[in-house]
């Protein structure tokens, strides 16, 4: 700093102007990067809407409520893929979220130091496996196991339980909605786990130690200190996992059975939006067929948007109420 004062005024101003130039450059470059995202998003929306227009015009709102998907007569309805997408994602979260949080709690609170590294690495590896590998594994390993042992047991167990016997009915194919949901739950696991673990680690040790000092059990510390402190982060992680579950294509199409039908049983084959698009797009001839598939894409876009919006809303609410408490 002292040298700067000694330097002649002209040189100082040239440095300053250069700095200003650099700043301006940085600002415009980063702004351009941000604008590119918006432009691309806009482009995607416009092309989806434009491509889906023929289908929307022909089928109108009934597109969402019709189950039939008939390429021969070119009558298309998206009810089955929408149902499959929502149900598989929901079950995947039902299984994946508790396990993920359990892993995160174990790693941050209970795990011996030497085991921490291997478990964390294993989870990161799980995230790095390409989805096609999950699909092949699901089809060749998981599906036959489910078919031989798990599904017959489920059918036998719930045979005489009203409601549940509808959920677990019918020939055990090994593949179907439930298998797809199981694969998805494994796939969302690393995302939710690593984020929850990270937010658990941000809980101030002082708080936890005070609780322990008061004689709290580990469960009480987790329940009353760690979870409330990090709920915002957990919800963020869950939403990220949900986004993946909704959009996953390759692994799902291998194990879901790809049937455009809505069946009350979770063991029955179904389909999801992204699996339908991936399967049928290359062979879709005719304007209406292609357009209906693009309309499916638009619906998935809207569903994802709604999920994200809900998450945002939830987070905003929670922040507000926290503010009131303190």
């Amino acid at each position, binding site marked *: 700093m002292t040298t700067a004062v000694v330097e002649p005024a002209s040189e100082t101003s040239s440095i300053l102007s250069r700095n200003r130039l650099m700043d301006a450059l940085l600002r415009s470059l980063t702004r351009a990067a941000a604008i590119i995202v918006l432009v691309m998003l806009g482009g995607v929306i416009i092309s989806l809407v434009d491509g889906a227009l023929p289908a929307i015009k022909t089928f109108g709102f009934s597109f969402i409520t019709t189950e039939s998907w008939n390429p021969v007569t070119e009558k298309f309805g998206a009810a089955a893929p929408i149902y499959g997408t929502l149900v598989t994602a929901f079950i995947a979260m039902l299984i994946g979220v508790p396990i993920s949080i359990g892993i995160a709690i174990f790693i941050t609170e209970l795990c011996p130091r030497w085991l921490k590294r291997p478990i964390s690495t294993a989870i990161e590896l799980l995230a790095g496996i390409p989805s096609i590998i999950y699909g092949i594994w699901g089809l060749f390993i998981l599906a036959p196991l489910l078919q031989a042992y798990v599904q017959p047991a489920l059918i036998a167990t719930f045979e005489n339980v009203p409601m549940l016997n509808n959920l677990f009915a019918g020939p055990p194919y090994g593949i179907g909605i439930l298998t797809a949901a199981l694969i998805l739950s494994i796939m969302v696991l690393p995302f939710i786990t690593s984020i929850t673990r990270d937010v658990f680690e941000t809980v101030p040790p002082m708080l936890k130690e005070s609780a322990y000092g008061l004689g709290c059990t580990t469960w009480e510390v987790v329940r009353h200190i760690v979870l409330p402190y990090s709920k915002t982060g957990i919800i963020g992680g869950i939403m990220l996992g949900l986004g993946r579950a909704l959009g996953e294509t390759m692994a799902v199409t291998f194990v879901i059975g*790809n049937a455009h039908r809505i069946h009350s049983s979770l063991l029955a084959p179904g389909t999801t939006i992204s699996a339908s698009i991936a399967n049928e797009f290359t*062979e879709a001839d005719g304007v209406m067929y292609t357009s209906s598939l693009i309309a499916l894409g638009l619906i998935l876009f809207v569903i994802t948007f709604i999920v994200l919006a809900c998450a945002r809303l939830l987070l905003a609410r929670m922040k507000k109420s926290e503010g009131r408490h303190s």
Partner: protein
Amino acid sequence: MTAFRKTLTRVSLAVAGAAFSCAAMAADITGAGATFPYPIYSKWADAYKKETGVGLNYQSIGSGGGIKQIKAKTVTFGATDKPLKVEELEEMGAIQWPMVMGGVVPVINVKGVAPGQLVLDGKTLADIFQGRISKWNDAAIGKLNPGVTLPSKAIAVVHRADGSGTTFNFTYYLGQVSESWRVNVGVDQSVEWPTGIGGKGNEGVANMVTQTDGSIGYVEYAYAKQNKMTYTKMINKDGKTVSPDADAFAAAAANADWAKAKGFYLILANQPGANSWPMTAATFIVMYKKADKTEDSLAALKFFDWAYKNGGKMADELDYVPMPASVIDLVEKTWATNLKDASGAALWK
């Protein structure tokens, strides 16, 4: 700084080199379409490249995709399992011709039933795939198989999940032999299946049938043979029981009258003849009549000509059936009269 500049020079040289080698490789023939003939096209291309140095860049993206690509003129030829109708060809200003043949085969997984032991006819097959026959010990199946004991097991139908030329040929045959199939389900590369689960690709169907006890599916012959699957025999149009093999496909093809088929629009399903396999299928090449790039189109034709003349043995090895010599003659005559180069002169002499 100098190190940086040196790297920069090196990189730009490398890029220029890559661009140059790309230009040198531009002689490659480009095509896109059906997945069914991909193994034989790539085998031919390999041998052809060794002989002539001209390579083939074939994207096996599906018949529908192939038609889209040729319409967009991003490739020199399109390949499809579902022949285009004459009107559609005329509208495009294109011609098509059959390149090689194969067969679609029903495959089953029933405990105690050996390959070729079970016999089905078209109507029974259509009823099974419509869910009208749902048990293996149904009287309709039993009547065709007096010596075979079949279990009282539910039939699990496995079909293709993706749109496919295989499905087109399979549903076309079912539509030929079953009125209710034609009316209720129809014929296309993908249809609204009344029952069953969808596997992705031939391998997906083959795998699902192998895994699921009591299942039935349909695959290309090569898949059934290579995976040693339990295929069924079929009763053909003449009422004779036939096994799926190259001879039966060739018999069906021999009966087909290509000379009378305008624009080579001919589907080989349900052909007459004592030895004809009822689900035989040809796969087609589509090209524009007027070549935008004479060189590229001529290179493609030379490859097809070479494959017709030298590719028969390779086709046999991969369980495809080469086109008969009479059909090849017919095809090359069509090239000579219909295909024009950029200046309007005949492309194939």
